[in-house]
């Protein structure tokens, strides 16, 4: 199969989250918006062992994640559960690195992680590189998970001279 683009990686994470929502086999979960579902505790939606087993069986089929023990469902949100096997931070990092200043696009992951945001996206939040990056993020992250409020906060981080990539990416991946 052809390689998966960085933006497809982020989109795939949200496809997985929607698959989790359907796998709950719960009308309550099905009617939640994606952000509420992501933040909801697994055991709040699936209180009994039978429901948790059903969920684990369903996600083994779609999105194809079969390595989660039932004990891992306690005390974790659906986003946290998905992040354990597929960290959203990684897919946001891959997308942003691909749109960063060319000098950082092929950097080792640790070097990119510790780079200054001003080096990755010269010109701050109004600069062309970040405008393109923000456009890409908003096109693949559902609006409910990347609200105007979060976008404004992210822009502030981009404009702060001392901000590192390690500050920026987790802020986006926290959703809201």
């Amino acid at each position, binding site marked *: *199969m052809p*390689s*998966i683009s960085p933006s497809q*990686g982020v989109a*795939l994470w949200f*496809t*997985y989250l929607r698959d989790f929502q*359907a796998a709950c*086999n*719960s*009308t*309550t*979960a*099905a*009617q939640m*918006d994606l952000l*509420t579902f992501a*933040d909801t*505790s697994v*055991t*709040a*939606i699936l*209180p*009994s062992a*039978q*429901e948790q*087993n*059903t969920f*684990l*069986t*369903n996600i*083994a*089929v779609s*999105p*194809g*994640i*079969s*390595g*989660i023990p*039932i*004990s*891992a469902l*306690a*005390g*974790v949100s659906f986003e946290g*559960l998905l992040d*354990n*096997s*597929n*960290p959203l931070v*990684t*897919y946001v*990092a*891959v997308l942003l690195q691909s749109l960063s200043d060319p000098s950082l696009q092929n950097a080792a*992951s*640790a070097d990119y992680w510790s780079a200054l945001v001003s080096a990755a996206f010269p010109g701050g939040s109004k600069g062309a590189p970040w405008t393109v990056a923000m456009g890409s993020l908003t096109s693949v992250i559902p*609006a*409910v998970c990347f*609200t*105007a409020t979060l976008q404004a906060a992210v822009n502030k981080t981009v404009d702060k001279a001392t901000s590192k990539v390690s500050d920026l990416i987790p802020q986006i991946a926290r959703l809201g």
Partner: protein
Amino acid sequence: MTRIQLANCASLLLVLAGVVLTQSSSPAAAQTPYSAVTYIRYPSLQPVSAIDISTGLFPSDLYDAIEKEKNNPKWNCAVPGFYKVAVVDKTGKILRNLTVEEVVLMGNDPSGARFTKCQGHGLPGEIQLILSSDVDSNDLLKVFIYEDTDQKTQISTSTQTLQFTASSFPAFTITPQAAPAEALNNGETRDVGQLNVTFSDSNLVKRGPLNVYAKSTDLFSTDGKDAKSAMSFTGGIQRGLFPRWYSPWQLQETLQGNQTAKNLSAVTSFRLSADPPWLWTRSFLNNKTILAPLPPEPSIANLYTHRLNQLVTEKTPLLAQDDYSLNPSFSWDTISFPFTCKLLFWERSVALTPPAADQPTPLPTTCLGTEIDLGLWYLPLDLTASKSQRVEGYGDISILIPLTDFAVASKQLTYVTGGSNSTKFQLRIKYADAVNATNNYARTKQWTVGIEALIAAK
């Protein structure tokens, strides 16, 4: 949810104490890409020992190594030959190699097909190496990833030694309770003390084709003639039947009776259960009148019983030494009636429809609720006085009144109506027409009232 029942017997009971001893593990944030775990695999319910590799961990040396190799046509992260898992000593010296039986790439690609190679960019996010070798929980392990199947050029290794962590632990619960005017087997009643004891281990064998489990549910009484006294020890195997449904079949052996063993039976059972698809009901079972977000749980069990001892009383006649029964049952929890919030708990409102995109939906509030259990014992070999085959139906219904946020009683019952995000209280009024299979199908009809604390699991 962990549910601690505070009172549940004959009108209102004094509860002496409740002790719950369980262990559970929660996933720790992945700091290193490598970990070793034993767990039950879905949907087969097969226990496995596996090495978990977080290929999507960013930043990490492993992530960078895969980025370099992803376009190498000779390298394929889905092939066991590129991995080595070894038991090492404390100095890191290899003592023996373990066999990697299978490499599982977690997740589907954008087309919905399972990943068959490492795509790079953190996809797939996780790989599991399923081991076919026996490993002791004290063994120290090291994982190596190579560029070639000759295992000459190493591209990554676990910098620290690993040890297996179990994903399930034995659970043991003891709950003492007082039961006034309890019915005895001789037809009398008296006040007794009772001790509920439960034990379970859902994964006795850490690697194999079948899930092996054991459990025990006992109620010991201060009076050996207590009609409710019961002991039940179970061992069994199970495996998933359908690939797309949680549908375990179980074959199990149970030794059950009362605490004096005057009733004692060995029961061999074959059981099938499932959670049916439920999303299709959302249009008519998720509204302001009724909220039933989760499906009922049907099951059917075939049981062969060999009775070693029988206690014959006025209510429990002598049964055949060998018996067969068919036990279909049906359990439906989490049904509530949102309109009652307005009637009884006017400080709260229920949101049932998703709001606009930028406004998160609050969790649906549970108002007056109910739970139903129904079942049937069909006993074809056990004839009644009129020589017809015996059938014993049973069931119970509970009315659940949430006390947390119970506005009308907030001044009188400050503690239970206050609650918090982690602890909530509810009143359970239950009517049960029960048949005790462990006590010669003795029938009891009983109203019970109790206050339950619902504690969110950590």
